[in-house]
């Protein structure tokens, strides 16, 4: 994605717990830098205009669209992508819940769903169904019809409470 003579700016940010430094063109979107410079392909790119929520990441603990900010703006930020959550052997409770409740089919929206759900549960440990639907309203899923996703978040709240 590099232009031959484009000026680059060095940024340092915390990505999934590690300090990382990278030179970026100002026009590079944070979503692209996370995928292409850091290999974090769990950042799924959908609409690139903020509507679908597939590229949702946490910046300083808050869910945002990574396609609607430039990487240069993330200087000093703490970024979490779905790769920060768990491993296949030791999944995060939110991931376990999505698996148990079949909260996904094709999986494209899943990283954004999981991260938004995690941010919600970090603030409201035991949300109502309405609160879950409100929080997830900015993440589109074209497979599930949302029902199982909502159930997965309810289950995740239980799993987190159990510790």
């Amino acid at each position, binding site marked *: 994605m590099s*232009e031959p003579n484009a000026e680059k700016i060095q940024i340092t940010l915390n990505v999934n717990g590690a300090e990382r430094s990278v030179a970026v063109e*100002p026009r590079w979107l944070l979503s692209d830098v996370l995928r292409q410079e850091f290999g974090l392909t769990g950042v799924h790119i959908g609409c690139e205009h903020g509507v679908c929520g597939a590229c949702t990441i946490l910046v300083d603990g808050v869910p945002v669209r990574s396609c609607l900010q430039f990487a240069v*703006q993330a200087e000093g930020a703490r970024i979490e992508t779905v790769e920060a959550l768990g491993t296949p052997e030791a999944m995060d409770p939110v991931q376990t819940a999505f698996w148990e409740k079949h909260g996904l089919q094709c999986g494209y929206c899943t990283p954004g769903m999981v991260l938004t759900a995690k941010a919600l549960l970090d603030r409201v440990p035991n949300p109502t169904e309405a609160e879950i639907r*409100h*929080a997830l*309203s*900015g993440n589109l899923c074209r497979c599930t019809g949302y029902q199982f996703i909502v159930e997965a978040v309810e289950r995740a709240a239980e799993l987190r409470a159990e510790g």
Partner: protein
Amino acid sequence: MKPVAFRYHAPDTVQAAVGLLEEAGFEGKVLAGGQSLVPMMNFRLARPGILVDIRKVRGLSGVRFESGYIVVGALTTHEDIFLHEELAHRLPVMRAAAALIGHWGIRVRGTIGGSVAHADPAAEWPAVMMALSASALVSGPAGEREVSMEELVAGPLTTTLEPADVVTALKIPAPTAGERTGIYEVARRPGDFALVGAVAKTKGDSVRLTWFGLGTVPQARESDSFGSLSEKAQAEQLSRWGEELEAESDLHASATWRKRVAAVVARRALSAAASDDAGLEAGERSGLHV
């Protein structure tokens, strides 16, 4: 689907931002929350050569209560406004309106100053600010000035701001005793831009309605005696106003539909104004506010 190359500046004072914009001329653009500008850049509908990111400018965020005025900094996000307890207490329509904007991930970045400067005909803040007789505080090459909302919004996505102008705050007259404001809108899904929305301000029998989402700019109608009319006469007045309004047709709704719904939405905005939360719970709020 990627922006063209641009030069990036992130000044930390308003003066520096104005200076950079002045140098940039028509190439320059302010970047605030990026929730409207970046989508347009991704689609290359906007191709600024120089971006002046004002997020690091100090003092542009937050709410101040001054004598007779409430001043909301331009960089205050929709979410900040939603969460502000004292603001919600003094002017509940601010919380009710913030709840209708986009989704969680949009509200935590998008700003009131950006929304007003963007002047989307379906956006909540330009209409709410107009309804409240607010003005924008603007810093430019010639110094600071105050611009009324009517003067600021010139058309769809068009304002009278000059290229080197920065909106620093919205200045809202503090509500006087007995004044109530509420908001209601219809959207296809929670968080979508409104198909039709209205802000109602009432005091005694007088009513002022400001609609958004119908035409190219917010449109207002007022009556000093509305409250004294019979229910039937009120309904007729609202329908007449709906008929009169300028309305556009698009993929989602025809102009005729919008004009009819304008009367219904106005009625509900009036109920919202009468309620303690300015329509928050009755509205299709789009997100969780935590």
